[in-house]
């Protein structure tokens, strides 16, 4: 298991966001944390990133307990829900930021930034500022910025929520392909079951701070283990998909 959560609990001001959460994700997998809003999926992601601390339980990345390690030392990249691009920096400077902080050499930074701009097909837009970009372009920049320091684990918080429905499907396919090409273990949070079913290798279904079921999209659809899963997942919608898989 590359990422492992062991009996995690977390409470915010009396609200229990995580109740005994345990799961593991293997290296190279693209996992979806799926659940209704308020089910605690973002909290799980933020705890893996080190942005929030669990009250109890262990978080392991690559076999090491990282509870006491700051997020910046965990080898992760994070894509925020609204991308959190640095609005006073150009696209290129956004992507370079993580490398500059690591005190990489100028030439190394430049070649890495160019490489990533090419990857996200925005070679000519390096000098633009975030507010001059479309939603989809911003997401691609956020993705490139998260990948710049070569993380072993990529975390994405509702990566498609801020994008309009029309381009969402297109971006989904794009992101899936990119993650496959880069070969980075990834976890994304979503409340959209279609998104989770179509994109992920592994779906972790959360509800009221608990994990309801973990499995491939196929298993979740065909063998729901709890009443909640049966109600929540609209299996009929995915029948066609399941046949293909």
């Amino acid at each position, binding site marked *: 298991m590359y990422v492992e959560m062991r009996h995690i609990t977390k409470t915010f001001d009396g609200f229990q966001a995580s109740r005994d959460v345990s799961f593991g994700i293997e290296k190279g997998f693209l996992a979806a944390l799926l659940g209704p809003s308020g089910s605690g999926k973002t909290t799980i992601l933020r705890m893996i990133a080190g942005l929030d601390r669990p009250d109890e339980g262990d978080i392991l990345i690559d076999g090491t307990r990282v509870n006491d390690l700051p997020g910046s*030392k965990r080898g992760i990249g994070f894509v925020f829900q609204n991308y959190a691009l640095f609005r*006073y*920096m150009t696209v290129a400077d956004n992507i370079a930021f993580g490398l500059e902080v690591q005190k990489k050499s100028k030439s190394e930074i430049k070649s890495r930034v160019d490489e990533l701009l090419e990857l996200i097909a925005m070679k000519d837009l390096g000098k633009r500022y975030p507010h001059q970009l479309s939603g989809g372009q911003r997401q691609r920049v956020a993705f490139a910025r998260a990948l710049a320091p070569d993380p072993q684990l990529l975390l994405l918080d509702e990566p498609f929520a801020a994008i309009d429905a029309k381009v969402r499907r297109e971006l989904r396919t794009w992101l899936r392909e990119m993650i496959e090409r880069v070969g980075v273990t990834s976890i994304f949070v979503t409340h959209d079951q279609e998104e989770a079913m179509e994109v992920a290798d592994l779906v972790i279904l959360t509800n009221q701070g608990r994990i309801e079921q973990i499995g491939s999209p196929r298993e979740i659809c065909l063998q729901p283990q709890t009443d909640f899963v049966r109600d929540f997942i609209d299996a009929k919608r995915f029948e066609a998909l399941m046949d293909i898989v």
Partner: protein
Amino acid sequence: MADKNEKDLDRDLVGDGIHSIQKVIQPHKAYSRPVIKYILIGVSVLFLAVMLGIPLIVVAVNALSDGWAAYKEAVLDEYTVKALLLTLLATVSAVAVNTVFGVFAAYLLSKFYFKGRQILATLIDIPFSISPVIAGLVFILTFGNIGWMGDFLKAHDIKIVFAVPGVILATIFVTFPFVFRELFPVLNAQGKDEEEAAALMGAGGFTIFRRITFPHIRWALLYGVILCTARAMGEFGAVSVISGHLRGKTNTLPLHVEILYNEFNTTAAFAVSSILVILAVLILIARNIVEWKRK
């Protein structure tokens, strides 16, 4: 306006002063009936003329009523120059202290959540609601000879009341919310995401402030500094109580004007006032440049 991005609109909702004013300037067509427009313009102009225009003319006319020579003499008078220097000292001190404090407080209250956060924000606003005279009195009762700290200060030979430190202290007190008030909404609207993103990439606190937070608050900070300067230079009430009106020692420009006026030295009083008016106009120009840049 047309090319406003989402972030600007966010700021409008939060009630960022300047951007909200822009909205008001562009009213819906139905409301811009010409008759109403001209009546409102007329009322505004009349009001400004009575409240601002005429008094300013009076200052200029009276200041120059005995001719240039008298004006120059009043302005270059030893006590006037000393009062001007003290005013500038108090202003610079207040701006320096309140800028540092304002940045820290605004950063703390917008980026961290803790119990009593709301109470702290309210306390910072107290100088806005309290009468400056009372602020001055409070300082006398705290630092004066019969005050709580009187014995301690006397033992260490520190003089605050009826001395320059008191003047500076009173000026700082009266102006301390300005920088905070300008920065807080801007920082609040920014959220924590950008800082969290930078921290996750391994940036330290100072790098985050310098590269992420500061570019965002730059103009708001300058605007706050300008407002703080304007208020500090004009402060009368609190300083009047605590200064003791010692000519050439603890007199600031506004106090000096009052003294001259009470001595029936009208020309000199208006001449000295004109220094303050000129400084105010300079600040106004600076303010407008910043406002325009900030868009």
